[in-house]
């Protein structure tokens, strides 16, 4: 049963992710992204990480994609004409794809990642309390750093997009 569900959700995620890239319509792309996120949330549920699944739907599917759609509609973005490929883009993308495939293949065949025995791994994501404890003890610093990075990104967007011509004190 859960194998079947895994394959269904995985298919949904991959198909929708491809839809995001290949759709010419920006709104359709955003909706494919939404479905893809719902699929990932389904995969989390299969892993018993209920909190993560719910948070993914609440934050990303519920708010972030809605903001994407809001921006797409507000700016009335159309697909427009795509630039034709030049020789340099073809060359560089081939090299990049080759590197990616080589990396993945070598990682899969010669990877030295130690995988712990699934029976001994402590499950921390399933109960709310265990999850919160990990978040506020072991992973406190990474969470703060990620939050700080997001803040910097937001400040950067404000500085780059806003014109400060009339304001003397900002310069």
């Amino acid at each position: 049963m859960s194998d079947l569900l895994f394959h269904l959700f995985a298919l949904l995620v991959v198909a929708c992710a491809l839809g995001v890239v290949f759709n010419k319509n920006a709104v359709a792309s955003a909706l494919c992204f939404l479905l893809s996120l719902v699929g990932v949330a389904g995969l989390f549920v299969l892993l018993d990480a209920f909190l993560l699944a719910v948070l993914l739907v609440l934050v990303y599917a519920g708010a972030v994609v809605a903001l994407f759609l809001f921006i797409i509609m507000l700016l009335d973005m159309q697909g427009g004409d795509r630039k034709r490929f030049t020789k340099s883009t073809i060359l560089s993308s081939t090299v990049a794809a080759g590197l990616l495939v080589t990396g993945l293949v070598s990682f899969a065949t010669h990877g030295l990642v130690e995988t712990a025995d699934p029976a001994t791994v402590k499950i921390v994501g399933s109960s709310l309390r265990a999850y919160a404890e990990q978040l506020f003890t072991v992973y406190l610093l990474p969470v703060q750093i990620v939050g700080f990075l997001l803040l910097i990104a937001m400040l950067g967007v404000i500085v780059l997009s806003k014109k400060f011509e009339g304001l003397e004190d900002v310069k």
Partner: protein
Amino acid sequence: MFDFYFELPLLLRLLLQGTVVILALFPLAAACSMAERKISAWIQGRPGPNRTKPPIAGFLAPLGLVASIPVLGTLLQKFGIFQLAADGGKFTFKEDPVPGHVNKFYFILAPIASMIPALSTVAFVPFGAYFNAADELVPVALAHVDVGLLAVFALGSLGVYSLILAGWASNSKYPFLGGVRASAQLISYELSMTLSVLPVFLWVNAPGGQGTLSLFDVVQSQSQPGFWGGTWYVMTMPVSAFIFLIALFAETNRQPFDMPESEADLVGGFHTEYGAFKWSLFFVAEYAHMIVGSGIFCLLFLGGWNPLPWVSLADTIHALAHILPCVATPLFMALIAIGIFLGKVGFFIFFFMWVRWTLPRFRYDQVMTLGWKKLLPLSIANLIVYALGIAWLQTR
């Protein structure tokens, strides 16, 4: 008595339970539309729909026979019950044209997308409780999960897509404006809504506990013995309840926050181009959101299925069982609990309508100012004050 039911396969049982809940919620949401018309009529000093009566002959004969019962028939007619049936018939059989200029796939997808979150949020809402054989209180709910409230918020937040899609797919100006307004408004008020319920869970999750976001546990913590154990959270956390209620109005697009449809400036807003059955789906979804939202409010702040503050359901059942022993059976007890809960929800549905026909609509900039500059700071301040207060109380 119900052994045969529990012997059925789990999947079939869940399917049956889900169908029953949807079959109860759908007509309840439809009945809300009639309640809205009657209440608006009473508030405005007119009788409202009170004439419709089905004929005794023809294919409506069963309804006609009910209508011809002397006192009951007239009463039902006065309350507009047959008008509701006529409306339902009209929406089902009316021609449903799709305008030529719309984006057909998304135009048809939007009303369907509105029903899915509206009917699936109810899965996480417990609507009653009963004593099992071991004398433990068991919730009546489709899914009793640890992340209860977050799951409701997560699924409920998907409801905005139907409005955005409807506005965008209609491919005309006014629906489009409605869709854009909906996306901005719903995100803005979601923040205050989520922040306003945090004090409740800070209090419920006392140090040393297992940690939970389940709505059943919130009700349980309001039905403890003693003065503070039996107090409803609306009394100890009035600001939270107030913010939650305002945000609920905005999240369900009810007046004075019905910016996405706002008839005065947007014709009909996101559903201008819709008609017949698709239009009625939007409305049933809106009422279903209202019912579920009122239910969440009752569970969080009004003691859920406890009849009165300081009087828990268990006490009531024990007291009643002295007079009527059959009350203590699981079925009766669950029915009483669901009845009390639905009574509270019904009052809030009335409150929603009362406000709608009393207050004028905000301007859009006022909605945004209220959400970001007043409600959000207030909810953050409320959270900090309660966090400090609860930390002080629980460490003493």
